[in-house]
């Protein structure tokens, strides 16, 4: 009985990868545990091991093939004694729900997740071959007074943009250094600090022990003396261990010292839900930090904003909480090719113009907002999508101006509903544009539950495009 060998996933968030190399060739005998092939993503390499015994009858995907979707059959294994040529000539079977071989869990789970687009959560066909998501054209980089007319745009992932931002600032300023778990030799748990150790050395790219509270305090102490640390949290979930140092030491000392002692530090790392990592590893902290005077809180969506805002954050004399998102790391966007591209902290951006309803979001929430705007356009509703980019200080003016134009508003975030960013936006609209509202504002948020593990429940716990569409129609009385 022939067995299909399927493209494995390194993690629940991986959708595709490169089949780098076959280590067995057609006709080779294979025993369980034999390494058949190597696959790669932009972050990691892993070996595909055989689970069954047999003969490698046919290789379906050749060496060096990029963008092989997870669960695509990559080879056929014939049982001992089976007619190899008959097996080989058989058309490839459809991907099975639970294919073989299983991923080899030889790497730290947190570090190894990847996904080029959040489509899996919408329940779409993950086995379809997918090109890297590239958002192009005016929608991708609208507007902007932020870049000169005619600036060349280069496509890069959010991950690369963040890396470049750090590298550029480290070249410029000797007092900038990066510290955190696995940032140096491992090249970053999510490969955001890739290559920094090689360029800047161990003095400025510092692997810390797993000791968030302690190294956050060390970073803050160093910042008090005028150094500019970039403290990477492997995820912001772990920064809860360090939140005392972030709030009581980093955010408050300038005030408590009567303006003497500033704290020029960036705390950065992935925030919010990734995929299938359950409650303790899936939480959006935007609302938490945004409640604290003395902090700035930034949450970019596009690669250009990730780069420009991180550069601004590193230069900022204040503590900046820089909230990234694991799912966005692998997404590609056009980024202005400029020697020194920065984006100002505290300015929202109209990502897509429209006249009928304002959708305000930030970070990964923008993926729902933009897809919903596409859906709404098909029904003749022109949604204006505001990307907050900075949560604190919040750009109330841009939100209010848009709401004054549309008269209707929906907020979108993955965080919890109570006292969330959406709640704050609603309050500001009420305070500043009450008379312009034609309908009550609706908040679309993560549900008021700890994040469940089961795929179906997780999907229910997160916002969906359908919810955003429905809310937008509701405020338009459609």
């Amino acid at each position, binding site marked *: 009985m022939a067995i299909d060998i399927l493209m494995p996933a390194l993690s629940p968030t991986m959708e595709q990868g490169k089949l780098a190399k076959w280590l067995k060739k057609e006709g080779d005998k294979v025993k369980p545990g034999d390494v058949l092939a190597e696959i790669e993503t932009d972050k990691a390499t892993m070996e595909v091991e055989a689970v069954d015994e047999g003969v490698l009858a046919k290789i379906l995907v050749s060496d060096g093939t990029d963008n092989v979707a997870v669960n695509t059959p990559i080879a056929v294994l014939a049982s001992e004694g089976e007619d190899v040529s008959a097996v080989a000539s058989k058309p490839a079977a459809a991907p099975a729900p639970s294919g073989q071989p299983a991923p080899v869990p030889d790497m730290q789970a947190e570090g190894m997740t990847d996904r080029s687009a959040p489509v899996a959560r919408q329940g779409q066909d993950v086995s379809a071959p997918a090109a890297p998501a590239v958002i192009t054209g005016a929608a991708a980089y609208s507007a902007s007074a932020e870049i000169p007319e005619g600036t060349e745009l280069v496509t890069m992932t959010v991950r690369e943009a963040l890396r470049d931002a750090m590298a550029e600032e480290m070249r410029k300023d000797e007092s900038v250094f990066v510290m955190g778990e696995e940032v140096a030799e491992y090249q970053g748990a999510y490969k955001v600090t890739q290559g920094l150790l090689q360029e800047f050395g161990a003095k400025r790219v510092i692997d*810390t022990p797993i000791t968030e509270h*302690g*190294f956050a305090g*060390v*970073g803050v102490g*160093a910042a008090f003396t005028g150094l500019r640390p970039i403290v990477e949290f492997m995820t912001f979930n772990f920064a809860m261990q360090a939140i005392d140092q972030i709030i009581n030491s980093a955010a408050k000392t300038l005030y408590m010292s009567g303006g003497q002692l500033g704290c020029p530090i960036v705390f950065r790392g992935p925030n919010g839900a990734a995929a299938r990592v359950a409650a303790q590893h899936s939480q959006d902290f935007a609302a938490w930090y945004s409640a604290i005077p003395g902090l700035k809180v930034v949450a970019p969506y596009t690669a250009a904003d990730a780069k420009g805002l991180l550069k601004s954050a590193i230069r900022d004399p204040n503590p900046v909480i820089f909230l990234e998102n694991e799912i966005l790391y692998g997404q590609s966007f056009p980024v202005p090719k400029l020697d020194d591209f920065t984006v100002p902290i505290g300015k929202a951006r109209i990502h897509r113009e429209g006249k009928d309803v304002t959708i305000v979001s930030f970070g990964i929430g923008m993926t729902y907002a933009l897809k919903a705007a596409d859906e709404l356009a098909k029904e003749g509703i022109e949604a204006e999508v505001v990307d907050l980019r900075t949560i604190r200080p919040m750009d109330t003016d841009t939100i209010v101006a848009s709401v004054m134009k549309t008269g209707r508003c929906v907020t979108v975030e993955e965080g919890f509903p109570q006292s969330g960013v959406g709640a704050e936006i609603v309050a500001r609209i009420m305070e500043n544009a009450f008379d312009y509202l034609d309908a009550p504002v609706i908040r679309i948020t993560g549900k008021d539950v700890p994040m469940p593990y089961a795929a179906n429940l997780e999907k229910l716990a997160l916002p969906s495009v359908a919810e955003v569409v429905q809310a937008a129609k509701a405020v338009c009385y459609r």
Partner: protein
Amino acid sequence: MAVAARKAGRAGAGSANKTTSTKGSARGAVPNIPQFDKSQDLSSYEDMLLIRRFEEKSGQMYGMGLIGGFCHLYIGQEAVVVGMQMATKEGDQVITGYRDHGHMLACGMDAKGVMAELTGRRGGLSKGKGGSMHMFSKEKHFYGGHGIVGAQVSLGTGIAFANRYRENGNVCLTYFGDGAANQGQVYESFNMAQLWKLPVVYVIENNRYAMGTAVTRASAQTDFSKRGVSFGIPGEQVDGMDVRAVYAAGQRAIEHARSGKGPYILEMQTYRYRGHSMSDPAKYRTKDEVTRMREEHDPIEQVRRRLLESWKLSEDELKAIDSKVREIVNEAAEFATHDPEPDPSELYTDILL
């Protein structure tokens, strides 16, 4: 208790050095207590007296309602910070917890500015926004003044990290108490400091009570000099009531840290005469215990005796020092009483740069 077991300075000034207890020290016996020359005795006397008189005045002003909130007095512990400061050089930093008035004065910060901060006035070192526990001076290399127990340990380790990063040869003195010594981030910091050989001296001021809890009721290991053993950090117990012992130990520790060998722990065995804060009646210990410490081990009285007996100062000369100190304190109190409160517009300044 090593401090209680010791009979310091009974046999006349300067001759009772070897009675200093080092029992239980992680490093074994320390060398004999060095003699101070006259100028060292004089300067340490004056510095300690300033702290004593300042704190007495603070207590008085608290009682008058001029100082609000928490107010943690350093009375009894003066020898620790004064002896340590004598062992530093320009550029070395100091960071501590909330019992910080003495540290600020020892760092040379203006008594008027400290007192006016206690009373929440605009001329306070933090413009009245920080209060007793939150003052800083970049100029004097004093990094606070921190109200969260143990937080200063990671912060001080970070300051030491910056010293190593800049290769400036400075050492950060990081003070904390026997209570803070049980916080988790202390050990996270010990680990990193030794791993990276950071120039930091951890000064554990063991005043025997974490608020109202005696060390024996809160700590499984009451020899705090051993708290770095699992990281390979050397430590020693020091008679924190004898400024000479503190100075000598401080020199050893700072030299160790400055030479690139990494952190060093000094457990200062000391005693606070007052309660944890002004609102603490200190019912958890006997009056006799406090009286015994004051009569037999007072850090200022030890030096005073040496000044009279070894250096043959007259009572009048000592009175002159006392008057000078009182004048500084009275001037500070006067200023802090009459300086206006911060302008209401200050509410919204200094939040961001």
